[in-house]
């Protein structure tokens, strides 16, 4: 079986100087799959900024690494497990978590935080609602199962519902780890004659062709691919983590890489390629879970919880002793050679021989046609927007909607506080973990918006980067670096490829502007089912740094405080209102363009709020995002303190209350003059909207009352919505 295109097969023949055998063909097929080689996106990914003074390791390694001072560093990355999560939600999501955690600790870092961006079809979809609920429950349980047992807190992310994910849910997992600079390891097979050691779980037939499955569209036959999904064992992974870190500390480990996509194939040839060495292994020595496996199957297996490491010759026993202590297999399966080749033997007989560099780094590079307008699922022109009959009811409808409601039902299933570093868990603008050793904390924000990006991939992508950086700034953190997960449809269709190119360029522009270089990430293409592509859904994960201190959180804390809007009320016109949650939930329509963004202004807003937080002037702080100002106000009331607000606006009420213009942060303070001064110094608007008060949220415009609702009612609707949506199948 070969999934290689005729031109790719020709290239293989040229590299080998002969016909490849079946095993070799399999090896080339997975290594040159879209998933492993980024052959459709590589050309454009080069446009992303990747450097800054803080970047210690950029793209190309298992995870990017950033200096956080005092000799410490963080490693982080986001990765998708979309296709497996559709076929088998629990295991698909669980192994998604497992895979990204290994990417972090294979570099030597101990994972200290996980965030997830997950997307499903609507839970009340007339046709797919049952299945969507089942997929959501499975995915959440899978994430919880793996992370909770492994012992890493799951502390944030986002959950979004759109029809375009009905047949193609998205599961993107972000993980972050911490270590000292002198504890960084690389996946390099250096040192001629050094032993190549296999550690961790035994190899079985699970997950063969997972990487190539992840590089194809879904068809009716995909449901037959359940055996391609791997099975995860978080207990094994926990042992592997402890054993690997302990082995690294012996000083006997030269290089190490996890076996993720394309398993043994990928780890051997990449380690050899990076070190410009050869790697020779004998498959007869590979620990196997079942008998009768062919070389093809062993090389392509994606069994989980396995690592490949290269040790210093003569010091193998130090490594073995550590793995024995943790009850894990550790076996020398080969050695580093000088001929630059991946040589695979089976009981001494050569079954594959391929040059490492060509295999790992010379994958075909496609400049897919993209000279057309990106595909748009919605008209440009705004429809007639009716006058709202009941703005209160609109607000409640928004708060009860899948995207905006509280996700407590989900995150209470995640261990958020293990490792005792969580300063801000799920439900905040950004998640925060402290680094115990340094007095520094790391804030993280993960964000996507397929709605904005389908209206304009470039503007949508820029808005995402801005939103993440705003989230970080709202808690007082300085954004320093980013990772991205690009979820798109079939790149062989020019109108989809155009979405990808526009989005990458948008991310590049914004990441340069906000000084958040991309240090790695993941591209997931062919997210299509039965010919229908998902909306373009880039997901950003951005990290920021702040001094360790009690966090500034969203809810209003006390009555009688000034409620202020940093950045001003913003502007909007009918076309720029078409991507809002109001258009989606209340009007059931989509049109036009995403909100307009002025990146210079946005950056000044970030600087201002960071200064306000750093000076301890904000009692509460909240980014104005999806659902606009009124939803942000309602969320700020979630702990019982309300507010009396007056909006000095010329806009119609629906626009003024619910438009999603960026560059705005809502805060409460008892020192409004000091806040205003900082706003002036940063040359941004700052409005006093009103004061916090007991029990009610009231929003007036001149003599008219637009919103008047008891806070308790808002909270009830917002808190219980998700459970109600899930109730048709929930127990008890």
């Amino acid at each position, binding site marked *: 079986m070969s999934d290689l295109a005729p031109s790719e097969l020709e290239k293989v023949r040229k590299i080998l100087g002969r016909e490849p055998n079946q095993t070799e063909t399999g090896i080339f097929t997975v290594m040159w799959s879209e998933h492993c080689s980024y052959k459709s996106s590589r050309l454009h990914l080069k446009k992303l900024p990747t450097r800054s003074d803080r970047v210690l390791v950029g793209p190309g390694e298992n995870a990017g690494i950033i200096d956080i001072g005092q000799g410490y560093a963080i490693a982080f990355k986001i990765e998708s497990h979309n296709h497996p999560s559709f076929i088998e939600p629990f295991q698909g999501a669980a192994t998604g978590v497992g895979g990204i955690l290994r990417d972090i600790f294979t570099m030597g870092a101990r994972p200290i935080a996980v965030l997830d961006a997950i997307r499903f079809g609507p839970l009340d979809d007339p046709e797919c609602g049952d299945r969507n609920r089942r997929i959501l429950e499975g995915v959440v*349980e899978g994430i*919880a*199962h793996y992370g*909770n*047992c*492994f*012992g890493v807190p799951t502390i944030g992310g986002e959950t979004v519902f759109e029809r375009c994910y009905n047949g193609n849910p998205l599961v993107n997992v972000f993980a972050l780890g911490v270590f000292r600079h002198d504890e960084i390891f690389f996946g390099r097979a250096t040192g001629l004659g050094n032993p190549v050691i296999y550690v961790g779980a035994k190899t079985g037939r699970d997950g063969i062709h997972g990487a190539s499955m992840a590089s194809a569209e879904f068809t009716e036959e995909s449901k037959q691919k359940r055996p391609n999904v791997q099975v995860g*064992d*978080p*207990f*094994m992974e*926990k*042992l592997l983590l402890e054993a690997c870190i302990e082995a690294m500390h012996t000083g006997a480990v030269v290089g190490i890489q996890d076996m993720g996509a394309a398993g043994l194939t990928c780890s051997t040839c990449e380690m050899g390629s990076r070190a410009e060495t050869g790697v020779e292994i004998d498959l007869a020595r590979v620990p196997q879970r079942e008998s009768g496996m062919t070389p093809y199957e062993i090389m392509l297996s994606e069994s989980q919880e396995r690592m490949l490491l290269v040790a210093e010759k003569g010091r193998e026993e130090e490594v073995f002793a550590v793995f024995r202590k*943790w*009850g894990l297999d550790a076996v020398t399966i080969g050695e580093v050679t000088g001929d630059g080749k991946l040589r695979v033997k089976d009981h001494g007989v050569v079954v594959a021989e391929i040059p490492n560099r060509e295999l790992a780094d010379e994958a075909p590079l496609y400049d897919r046609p993209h000279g057309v307008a990106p595909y748009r699922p919605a008209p440009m022109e705004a429809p007639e927007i009716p006058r709202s009959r009941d703005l209160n009811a609109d607000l409640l409808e928004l708060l009860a909607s899948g995207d905006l409601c509280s996700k407590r039902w989900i995150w*209470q*299933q*995640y*261990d*958020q*506080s*293990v*490792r*005792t570093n*969580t*300063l801000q868990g799920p439900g905040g603008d950004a998640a925060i973990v*402290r680094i*115990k050793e340094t007095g520094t904390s790391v804030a993280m924000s993960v964000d996507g918006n397929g709605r904005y990006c389908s209206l304009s991939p470039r503007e949508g992508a820029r808005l995402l980067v801005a939103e993440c950086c705003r989230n970080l700034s709202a808690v007082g953190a300085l954004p320093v670096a980013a990772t991205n997960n690009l979820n798109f449809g079939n790149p062989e269709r020019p109108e989809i490829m155009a979405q990808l190119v526009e989005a990458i360029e948008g991310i590049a522009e914004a990441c340069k502007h906000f000084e958040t270089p991309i240090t790695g990430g993941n591209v997931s293409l062919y997210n299509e089912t039965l010919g229908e592509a998902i909306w373009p859904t880039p997901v950003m994960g951005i990290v920021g740094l702040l001094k*360790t*201190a*009690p966090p500034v959180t969203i809810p209003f804390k006390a009555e009688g405080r000034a409620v202020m809007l940093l950045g001003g009320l913003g502007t909007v016109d009918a076309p720029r209102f078409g991507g809002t949650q109001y258009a989606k939930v209340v009007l059931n329509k989509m049109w036009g363009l995403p909100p307009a963004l002025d990146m210079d202004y946005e950056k000044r807003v970030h600087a201002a709020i960071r200064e306000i937080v750093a000076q301890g002037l904000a009692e509460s702080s909240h980014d104005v995002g999806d659902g606009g100002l009124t939803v942000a106000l309602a969320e700020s009331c979630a702990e019982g303190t309300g507010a009396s607000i007056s909006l000095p606006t010329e806009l119609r009420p629906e626009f003024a209350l619910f438009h999603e213009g960026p560059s705005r942060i809502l805060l409460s303070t008892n020192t409004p003059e000091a806040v205003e001064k900082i706003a002036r110094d940063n040359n941004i608007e700052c409005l006093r909207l009103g004061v916090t008060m007991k029990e009610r949220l009231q929003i007036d415009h001149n003599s008219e009352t637009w919103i008047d609702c008891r806070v308790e009612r808002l909270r009830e609707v917002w808190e219980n919505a998700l459970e109600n949506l899930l109730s048709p199948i929930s*127990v*008890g």
Partner: protein
Amino acid sequence: MRFGVVVFPGSNCDHDAWYAVSHNLGHQAEFIWHDSASLGNADAVILPGGFSYGDYLRCGAIAKFSPVMAAIKKFAQDGGLVLGICNGFQILVESGLLPGALLRNRQLRFVCRPVTLRVETAHTPFTSAATKGQLIKVPVAHGEGCYFADQRTLDTLEAEDRVVMRYLDNPNGSLRDIAGICSEGRNVMGMMPHPERASDPLLGSTDGRVVLESMVRSMVTTNA
């Protein structure tokens, strides 16, 4: 005061307990590996949370066979203080050091959130620094925390003042809202909530300290 924190393969709150004792309270804490037949010179032992041996079979069911548990049984028989938190509570129950069982949560889902506990007795070495009726806010994080025992056992626990803590907002369906119990000799306690996660002012609550501080106070008294 020297605390020993037991590390089983799969323990994942071992470091948290160690940090709370050593950094938040300023006492000595050392790790004890599961295949150790000795507890070294520990004055008190903590069995931390996590998924010992993957929690295969049943939570804590395999851990009870580890060499360190034989040492802990002996230590407990001699009156040593043993605190089991979360998975540690499950192990104590499986080992027979405490009565009853911990079943899957009533709602069949893992639950992680702060809960409010009422201290039901100050007559234990784990609550002597607290007052009866005191409310403390401490997080839970477990999938199998529903405390279960037959009526007679429950009645006995209550009659002997061995229900140490109760949930005000029962997160898992535990019978009679039981969150923590102690042994007949009162020197072994198991609790599902995590006091070590509520010992640092930065993390929002220091209410969990009272458990560790009570242990220190008791040891000082005993050693004096």
